[in-house]
Structures are given as structure tokens and as C-alpha cells.
């Protein structure tokens, strides 16, 4: 994998359109590349989804809805060599579909502790959400349990030092937190 190649403008968007702009001199002088897209996590689990599209060097290459066959979910994508399938640049992530909300409630429980409750319509794995302390230290939250109407994780949290709940970086396109 040669990540030293000059980064080219290659963007997939949540609405399944993409934008690919590069000159033949870039990407090692290739006239065309392979855009490889594969699922990281699907909204409705359905095996592993994968697609490959040939792209030609162009200064303005916008195509729409070409990826409509892929189900909603989080995908990773990267440019690859058309023959060897060698990965040419770092992976990027995109979520096809509407962002899913995770609702968060935080209420005082007893003494210096709050009860924090996360509710999601999709199941969350351990580490999908994290607790970030002001010091920058991150701690993964546990996985959700299924409850009527959705998936829940709840825990006690001391108020002594400030910390924020966040979605893990690679899932940022898939989930957003909403405080209620």
C-alpha cells in the first residue's frame, strides 16, 4: 500500500453519490483506478456487502445513485489498482442512509452519582460509544441490551471530573448523540 501518493479528491456521500477528481499524473500515473467499497456494519445485518467501480482520471467526475444497490449501513472505501487490487490510499468511511440517533438521558441518582442511559434503535457493541474525560483519556462503554422498542445501556457515573459521551470516531457518520 503506497500511502505516499498524493491524496486525490475521492469522496463518497451519505446520499450514495460520489465525487472523484484526479489527474492522470496523480495516483502513480494511472489512467483508471478501482474504487472498492465494503460494508463495516449494516443497519439490517445482511452478510458483507462489497462493490467495485472503475473510475477514470478526470477533473470533474460526479456520479449519482450509482451505489443504490448497497443497503443502508457503514462502509469503508479506498482506491485500488485495477489489476492487483493493491490499496492506494488510506481507508475512508461513509454511512449510507439517514444518521441514527442515540438518545442520552442523565439524571441525578444518589449522592455524587448520576444515572446515564443510552437508548438506540440499533444494537451497539462495546466501544461504539465512549466516555472521554477532559484529560483526553477514553474509556469504552459496554454493549447494549435489547429492551422493548430498542437497545439500552445504562450505568452510574460520578460527577467528580468532567467527561463527555461520544460516538467512536469510525461510527460518527452512522450515529449521533441526542441528549433528552
Amino acid at each position, binding site marked *: 500500500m503506497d500511502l505516499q501518493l498524493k491524496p486525490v479528491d475521492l469522496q463518497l456521500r451519505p446520499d450514495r453519490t460520489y465525487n472523484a477528481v484526479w489527474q492522470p499524473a496523480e495516483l502513480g500515473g494511472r489512467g483508471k483506478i478501482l474504487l472498492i467499497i465494503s460494508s463495516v456494519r449494516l443497519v439490517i445485518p445482511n452478510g458483507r456487502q462489497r462493490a467495485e467501480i472503475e473510475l477514470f482520471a478526470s477533473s470533474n467526475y460526479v456520479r449519482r445513485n450509482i451505489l443504490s444497490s448497497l443497503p443502508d449501513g457503514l462502509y469503508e472505501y479506498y482506491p485500488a489498482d485495477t489489476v492487483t487490487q493493491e490499496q492506494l490510499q488510506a481507508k475512508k468511511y461513509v454511512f449510507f442512509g439517514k444518521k441514527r440517533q442515540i438518545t442520552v438521558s442523565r439524571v441525578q441518582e*444518589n449522592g455524587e*452519582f448520576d444515572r*446515564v442511559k443510552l437508548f438506540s434503535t440499533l444494537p451497539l457493541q*462495546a*466501544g461504539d460509544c465512549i*466516555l472521554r*474525560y*477532559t*484529560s*483526553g*483519556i*477514553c*474509556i*469504552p*462503554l*459496554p454493549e447494549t441490551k435489547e429492551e422493548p422498542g430498542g437497545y439500552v*445501556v*445504562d*450505568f*452510574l*457515573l*460520578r460527577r*467528580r*471530573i468532567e*467527561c463527555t459521551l461520544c460516538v467512536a470516531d469510525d461510527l460518527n457518520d452512522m450515529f449521533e448523540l441526542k441528549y433528552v
Partner: protein
Amino acid sequence: MGLQSQLREQSRRDLPQIGQPRQTMVLAGWKGDSLAENLCEAIPQAFQPLYKRYLFGTASELTNRLGKMIAAAGDQATPIYLIWVWGERPAPDFRSVIQSFHKPFRSVTVDVCRVNDASGAWPGGYRYGYYLHSDPAQAADELLSLLMLAATGRGTLDLPPAGQNFQLRTTLYNSKERDLVRQLVEQLKGLLEIDQALELERFANAFGPNEEDMAHLYQLLPHPMDLPIPGIKRLATLLAGKERSFIGGTGQHADVTVQDALEAFFGTSDNQALPEYLRSVLQRELPSRCRSYLSGLDLERRCYQQPICILRNWRYLVSRHKESIRGQREENQKKCGNVLRGRFTPLGTGFSALLGAMNDYFKIWKEFMYCELKKAWWEEVDKIFDENSEIMREATAAYHRLSNGLAIATRLNMGPYVADSGGIPIDWRNKTPESILSGLFSQAEFSRDEIVQIIQNAQTQSDRQVPAEGMRETWMLYGGVLDEINDFDDQGRPVFRKKGESLAFRGATGHLRILSFQNAQMGRYVLWEIQITPANEIGR
């Protein structure tokens, strides 16, 4: 100016002044005799009001000048005392000069001082001839001692008849000078050295974390109790289940260990109970946190305020501190393992009961983290020192500069003194022995014991070196009251013998006499030792 001459200048600058001299004193020499000119120049400025200084081209210029001085003084004329400084060019014949002035009107006395290795025959008409030391600073002190004697009216001690030559040796004991050297040595030592036994501690005080630093750093870290706690019920269930279960039919209860409890209570990550996971995350995180905290402490400035030996030794000192922490860490690791393997025995299944049973673990967690913080701290200090080679270069330069000064100051050997311990740390960056000295001030007087000791030393010296040709006279000029220094020996006999206005040393030879110069207001700052030995002219 060298350190030594600076010291001389500085300690003589504020010597006690003598009042109005009892005679008119003139210091003279040939114009162009550079040796003589330099000698006259070397007498400290503070004493210049005592005398008039002239350089003459010819003998008649000298006669004219003396004549003018007498005429100007008129009836108020006092005797004139002239010291002729003979450097390179031989002194003139003084017979005609003296004869020009008639006795009842005015008397003129001439002493000739010649530098030790000057060549030529002695002139006529002078009273006494003195050989001076070949070191100009020393010779200047000798000239000064003659002026002092004359100014206080003691110029005509019980010396033999005129026309004789002497070897003149003067030692000026100056309490301020001694004190300045003592202070200088102390300050230089303070900048350079520290007792080896205190090095490690001093280094830790300067560059190690104090309680406040530790508390501050620890306080900002998330503790196990700051972790999300999702498993209160899970732990309660685990405890209830284990109470009923047996392992493999052995009939024994399976204990819930503290580790089991932590895993249930806090959950796990990377196959570790979450608090243990936090511990490993923090371990990686601590160096950068210490680094940023240290950057706010201005360690550089602290470097400049430490004895330089500490900086030159920093590698060893840091490694000693790291070493001591290593042992502590191993100990903590062991303790932590023991606590985790121990049985979890809460007093109930409520939240606070469960937390209470984890207390031992929390305590060792804190100890562990303190230790890790210290380790990270010293590692960062290590790096900071390593990266700051500029400070080390400065320290090395300062070390050479100051230790040279210390060697000189120590060599001056101004007698014993008690070294002060420590003192206020000073920034050594721009310090030189000279700049330190110029900032020093002293009003130190000799103690009575010191004076007695100096006198006794002089006596011993004088006894030891009785010259073959005639007797040596040693006079001690003292500015205080003589009775103050008289003392009795073990047998109750007075150490000094009173003899007229002076005290004589009660020794074997009796060559030493102590003269009081209270009227000279010399105080207890100075003690002059003036030694006059008949000079053997043969072989000169």
C-alpha cells in the same frame, strides 16, 4: 584586575582613617622611574589625604618644593617627613637638601625605601634605609606602614642611630579582608558544591515532584470510581449465584475474587476489568501529562539556582531516583496481584457495600498511580536535561570560572573560619568570582581571641628567625585598647608585659612589642605587623 588585587583594593578602600597627621608627609621619587611611580600609585586611594606625592626631575626641584612648603606653612610649620621611593634610578644625595633648612625653623627627615633588587650605592643624608619587597602590592603595604607610623607620631621608635639600613616586612592583618575572603569562599562553595549526602535530596527538592505536584496531577486523572458502573445488579447476581454453586462436585464454594467483582461491577475491556484497563491506559498517558505539567514549572530557572555539582551529576542523580521507584513499582505490582486474587467479601449487596469492599483495591490503585506518576516524572526530567545541553554548557563554563576563583580565594588562606552551611541559592549564570566579591561588604572586626592569636603567631615567627646580624624588631600596631587584649596564661601570669605605652610579649626574646594606636582610629579592623631586620649589606 585579578581577584587578588581587587580584594586588596576593596578591603583597603574603607580602612579606618587616621586623623590629622602629626607631621607633613611627602612621598617622592624620580620622574620617569616607573617602578617608583607604580609603587606610589599602588597605595590605596583612601590614604592619599595622609601625604603629598611628588615626582621630581632634578634634585633642585626637590629643594624648591620643600622650600615652598615651608614658606606656605609659615609659623604653623610642622616637621617634614619625606619618604624617597627608589625604583630604578638611585636616590639623590640628601645632605644639601637638609642643610638648606635650618633646624629651629623647620626639620626635614628623609627615609629612603628601595626596591629589593634595585642596584646602586646608598646616597648620603638620609636617616634610615629600607629594603622593600619585590612584589609591588606588598611593597606598597610596606610604604603605607611607614606612613602610618609617621602619621601617628611613632615614626621615631627606639631605632638605632641614623644611617642604618633595614629589611622592612609588613603584614597587614585586616579583619574586613579576611571576612571578605571568608564570604567569597562561602558563596563560591554555595554555588559550586553541596554536601554529597544532601545531593540526592536537594536534587529531589529542586526537580522532583512535591506533594502538591503529585496531588494536582493525580487529581486530574480519572479514578476507578469515575468509570461508568453498569454492573451493580450483575455483581449482586454473581455473588448470590456463587453462594449456592459448587465446583465440580468437590463440595467447595467457589470464591468470588476481587477481580471477578471488578469485572462484573465495571465491565471489561481488552479482557481486563475496566479499572485495570484504565490503569494501563493511564500508564501510557502519564509521560505526556507530566511533560506538559513540567513545562509550566520552569525547570530551567531552577537549574540556575542549584549548586553546579548537582547539575554536573544529574545523570547519576536521576538514575538513583528512577532506581528507587523501580523497587517500589515491583512491590506495588505484587500487592495489586494479591488484592485482585483475594476474596471479595462485601457486607451487603447495596451499592455502597459493594464499593466499600473494593476499598483495598482502590487504595493500591492510588499507590500504584502515584508510583507511575513519579516514574513518568523522572523520565521526563531525564529527557528535559538531556535536551537542554545549553544549560549544561553554561554550567560547565560557570564551574570552571567559579572553581578557579574558589581555588584563588582558598589559597589566600586568611586563617581558619567556620563555613556557613548553604545560604540562599543564587543564580550562577552571570556570576564571576570578581562580581561576587564586588558585591560583598564587611564590617567585621577581629575578635579578641583572633588578635591574640595573630600576635602569638608573630611572636613565634620572630623567635624562630632571629637574624645573625643584630636584633630584629617586630611591632604590632593595634587600634584598640591594649588592656582588652591582655590575658593570663594557665599559671595565672599575664601573657603580655606592660612597658610604658606598649605591651611586650612575655616570650623568650622579647622582640615583639604591641603599640596602641587608639588615636589613629584604626579600630579593631586592622593589625599591622611591622618587622625591621638590620640589613646585611655584604653581598648586596
